């Protein structure tokens, strides 16, 4: 079993509700707190899920893309073997990569090893923290079944994020990846991340060739 989250980049509008709900849940959850350096003045702190904003193309055919980026729960997680104390580990039963704070010495080598920069260093506790796939929610049998999913998935207003078992060919996530050509970030680095993204579908340009010259002239 390999639990994962699939994000449809066609649906993500960059509202950051997943980022905020992650922070809210995990600051008060079993793995919290997720600290800020100075939360009431200049937020410069820890986020386990960050939304990267990108721009593509040139005016007038420019577009924006939002990439929610959290732990990829890689099949060959490079952060795990480098950890000298065994604090970073990958669960054999569900593939979730976790950190045991009691064993972590805060050497940060796992942060160097992670190709995606999704591990964060907690200066207060001296340990490295990261997305847990809300393991405390998904394994909490006191919760209703619809609540047993990561906070970021549950809070997404456009349903861009889908949670499930990638190793189960009948699961929705496996179907989405197979049918819509889900892709991984930086596959050349060999981590084989479980988290996939569904690529942008081409959208017909709103500007035809006849209007292009006049638009560019007006702009410049």
């Amino acid at each position: 079993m390999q639990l994962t989250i699939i994000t449809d980049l066609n649906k993500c509008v960059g509202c950051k509700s997943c980022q905020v709900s992650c922070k809210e849940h995990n600051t008060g959850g079993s793995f919290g707190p997720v600290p800020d350096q100075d939360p009431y003045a200049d937020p410069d702190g820890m986020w386990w899920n960050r939304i990267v904003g990108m721009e593509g193309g040139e005016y007038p055919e420019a577009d924006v893309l939002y990439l929610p980026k959290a732990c990829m729960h890689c099949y060959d997680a490079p952060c795990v073997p480098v950890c000298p104390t065994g604090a970073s580990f990958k669960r054999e039963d569900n593939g979730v990569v976790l950190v045991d704070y009691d064993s972590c010495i805060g050497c940060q080598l796992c942060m160097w090893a992670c190709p995606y920069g999704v591990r964060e260093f907690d200066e207060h506790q001296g340990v490295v923290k990261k997305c847990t796939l809300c393991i405390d929610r998904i394994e909490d049998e006191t919760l209703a079944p619809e609540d047993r999913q990561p906070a970021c998935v549950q809070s997404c207003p456009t349903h861009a994020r889908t949670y499930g078992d990638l190793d189960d060919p009948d699961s929705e996530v496996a179907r989405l990846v197979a049918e819509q050509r889900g892709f991984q970030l930086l596959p050349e680095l060999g981590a084989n991340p479980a988290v996939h993204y569904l690529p942008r579908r081409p959208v017909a340009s709103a500007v035809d060739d006849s209007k292009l010259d006049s638009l560019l002239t007006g702009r410049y």
Partner: protein
Amino acid sequence: MRPTGPLLLMTGLQGLAGGVFVVLAILGFVAAPGFLHSATPGFLALLGLVLVAGGGLASTFHMHRRAAAKFILRRLKSSWLSREVATTAPFGAAAALSVLVSLVHPVAPGLERGLFIATALLGLLAMWVTAMIYATIPAMLSWRTPTTVAAMMGTGLVAGGVWAWALLVVVSRTSDTGLAIALVWALLALAVLKGVQGRVFRRARVQVESGQQMGMPGRRYRLADSGTSRTPYRTQPQVWRPLTDEERQRARGPLAIAAVLTAVLLMASGSSPVAVLAVVTAAAGVYYERWLFFADATHSSSIWLTSGAASPWEPTRKSVP
């Protein structure tokens, strides 16, 4: 990545100690017959011990939660950091034994020579393992090359050799010309190696700045909002703010000056002031070399944090206020 003091100290001092013991082991064979009966080997071993102990002490400051240090050997099978502890500790123990044998309780020259060789080999092993920590991280695009191992070990060996030469000058009031010439040649080889490493670092920067398309297939994208804290990314020390060309030159300049000055001092007639100056220039060289190694390194995640800064595609809206 962020070049923290403990990182610079622990890697720098361990290399210097390794260099000192390699010189001591070589001198055990090639020096005059009376060398092993004099106090000089003891002083050299003491210098090496102080250096390796200093490196060990610095490593404890690199740990941010020492309470878990007792678990550090758990991942010997896969973690080069576990292996570093497992090799540096015996190196330190052998260094202490060398001091004991040379200064406190002399033994037969053959046994002493063997101990120095064993210590030097343990030192080389510890240096190699330390370098492998950095050279085996695929995400550190600047480091994943054999050049990293060669340059790290070479820097330690040459600088440690210069320190050993300086101690010999202070003790004997004359310069060991053979050792000085060998060190100048080694310095020259190291300069070439650093040039090669500079190209690797530059290639890594270019790869991140222009070639990765923000990790997205197909269309090219440029960074508009990193979604992260401001530089120097307090919670993400695997990346640091990218160095400007000016900053890079400001660090390379002193490094080159330190190397040239060290070579000149090695060729000068041996006197205590010259030796002390050589110690200072070699230490400065190690500091600047190591600072550049960490500060100028490019991590793959930089593409989502700093990419675009040096690209012709400037972001239309800066994420950094």
